[in-house]
């Protein structure tokens, strides 16, 4: 990457990358703990991270002692951080990490450069797309992850399809079903490569409650369609194939940490979120295994507490 002249560096105490539950929790604790310059960079136009896309409950029991929607939860987390004194910079994209707490970022007002005592990476996680899963066939419109479907349904209020197939039975598949209901779409089937569901027992009956057929031991071997998805070929573990008419495919889960910023800097984290550079640490779903928003919030708070102890030494 090239850029004309490097912009002047802003000296800050803490730079948090990502205004999701983990990043906002860390920023709240750090600002409340007495650090004066706590800056949160968020590339989206609003803070909150993944919960912002979740129109459904339940969120907030751990943090606010009440059940609220994802969007309301996101707002409350951002308010808490701001009230504690943290500054959230929206539409600001972290570009590259340098050694010892240096970070460059892009913003609509120009390139930014920060030097921080500590950088907290809280960039979260995404789902594996179709390409990563090497699912063959045509490339019609209507193939996406749950995250994109939720953004269609709750942020943009658009329906990308009416009768999709949902792939996977982790908890997030239920979020996909709820998002479908929100836009008036009726899933044609829920398919799962394993012999049984990945979600805990009480939730396993959920799809059937909505009248969605569930096929275990089954994978999508091919997606077909011209402009939009028209059908998929399902292959059972015993080799039997059949086609199923649908107009979309939602690939759920297959969690991939959003780690490209750290990878590009040659950094890898241990399970506590530490790496070879003492100025950089990580929290939330950037670190496996996958956590709920509430658990991510906890890791952010824990990491922030340990940073406060470090800096007090």
């Amino acid at each position, binding site marked *: 990457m090239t850029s004309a002249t490097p912009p002047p560096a802003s000296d800050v105490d803490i730079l948090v990358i990502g205004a999701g539950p983990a990043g906002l929790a860390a920023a709240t604790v750090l600002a409340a703990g007495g650090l004066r310059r706590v800056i949160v960079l968020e590339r989206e136009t609003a803070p909150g991270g993944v919960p912002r896309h979740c129109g459904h409950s339940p969120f907030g029991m751990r943090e606010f002692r009440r059940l609220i929607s994802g969007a309301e939860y996101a707002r409350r987390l951002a308010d808490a951080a701001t009230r504690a004194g943290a500054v959230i910079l929206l539409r600001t994209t972290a570009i590259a990490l340098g050694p010892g707490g240096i970070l460059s970022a*892009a913003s609509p007002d120009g390139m930014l450069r920060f030097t921080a005592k500590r950088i907290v990476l809280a960039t979260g996680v995404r789902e594996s797309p179709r*390409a990563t899963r*090497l699912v063959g*066939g045509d490339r019609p419109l209507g193939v*996406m992850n749950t995250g994109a479907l939720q953004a269609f349904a709750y942020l943009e209020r658009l329906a990308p399809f009416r009768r999709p197939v949902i792939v996977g039975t982790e908890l997030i598949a239920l979020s996909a079903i709820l998002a479908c209901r929100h836009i008036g779409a009726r899933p044609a089937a829920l398919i799962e490569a394993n012999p049984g569901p990945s979600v805990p027992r009480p939730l396993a009956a959920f799809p059937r409650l909505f009248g969605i057929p569930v096929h275990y031991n089954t994978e999508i071997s091919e997606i077909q369609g011209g402009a939009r998805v028209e059908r998929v070929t399902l292959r059972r573990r015993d080799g039997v194939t059949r086609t199923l008419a649908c107009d979309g495919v939602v690939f759920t889960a297959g969690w991939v940490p959003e780690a490209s910023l750290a990878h590009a800097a040659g950094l890898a984290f241990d399970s506590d979120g530490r790496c070879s550079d003492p100025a950089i640490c990580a929290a939330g779903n950037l670190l496996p295994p996958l956590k709920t928003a509430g658990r991510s919030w906890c890791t952010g708070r824990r990491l922030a507490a340990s940073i406060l102890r470090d800096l007090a030494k």
Partner: protein
Amino acid sequence: MGISGPAEDAADVAIIGAGVVGLAIARRFVLEGARVLLLEKEPDILAGASKGNSAILHTGFDAPPGSLEHACMQAGYAEYSEIRAALNLPLLETGAMLVAWTEAEEEALAAIEATALANGITDVSRLRPEAVRAREPNLSPHARAALLIPGEHIIDPWSAPLAYALQALANGARILRNAKVTAGRFDGACWRLSTPAGEVQARNVINCAGLYGDLVDAALRGHSDFTIRPRKGEFVVFDKAAASLLGTIILPVPGERTKGVVLAPTIFGNILVGPTAEDQEDRARADTRTETLRALRARAAEILPALADIQVTATYAGLRPATERKEYRIITDPARNWITVGGIRSTGLTAALGIARHAYGLYEGLGHRHIPIPEPATPRVPNLAEHLPRDWQNPGYGQIICHCELVTSREIEAALAGPLPAADLGGLRRRTRAAMGRCQGFNCLARLAAVTGRRLAVPLAPGPAA
């Protein structure tokens, strides 16, 4: 019928097909002073063979010496190098190594080197295994030898033909999309072509219909001199985390039994592997197969072992308009004021500008003369190459819509405006790289749907939430 002369607004040439070849020809003819009308059956340009290739600017080192293909590749390479700065077209100077993995392949290198020298590519050199490793330390240690071809480079396979289109338009060409030629008749002086966009008139026709070239010839001339046999090539694209692993294009030694695959950096910062070569009947369907994609990924990891740990960002397939013969099928039909440019396969991206000059020569041979435009307009295309400055580095871009590829709302709006706006998601992706990164739309698809709305021929979201 047939007595009345051409209408006032009749074009000098109608070009059928807005692939890289048709667009390069449109540009050349416009610059030479001809009135050009380009007809494309799809909603956007580059919808057929030109949308899926390996994006290599070839020297032509291994082309048959003395062949038209070789001449067009060399002329195309030279012209691309000459015009790219003015049109803002990128070049990633990688060089290529033709790597021998077996004894038989090693023995074959001598003949390939001789062909390269016969083709005037004199800077090739043989590399011993140590030199191969020194140049590409991450390559499998099983390389026995290589032929280094320093002039093979990587370009943007879509911004180049887009630049040809925009320069043609800026200098007076007309491009009609959704304009499939369904019938035509020639009255001895003028063609009248029927399209869904209405009847158009042109004194000459140049058939650049790619995968449909033989069908267009058959429908309008009454016969075709060749038959298209679509050859599918599947590709796998690796995440940008792989970019530092490879700096050189790795070419296979062509063998009797196996067709090897290319491993190459892309100008966008990825590494791609492919293509396969699968003959098929279908001219439209470029689907992939999971087994083939798995085999490609495995082959890539054999060549560059560290790729085993790198995620796949994208998969795609392209169709090459192969015919029953290897060579280009460029045919003039003077009695019908007709030129067919067919059978342009893997080398079309490199050769297009050279083919365009050749086609103009054939046209002059039919007795046509024009006065070249003295100072042609030279619109610059937006840069999408990773190693050059991108839009997000300049303030005032609105917001970044596609985070993986750092595509700004300013870029999206520009691609949806202007003389040749993107008409579908594919066209928007090719013009901006939106949704082409590692998350494949996880983050940006819904925003893109909202931003593009009804401006795309096939909207990303067919309807509002119920």
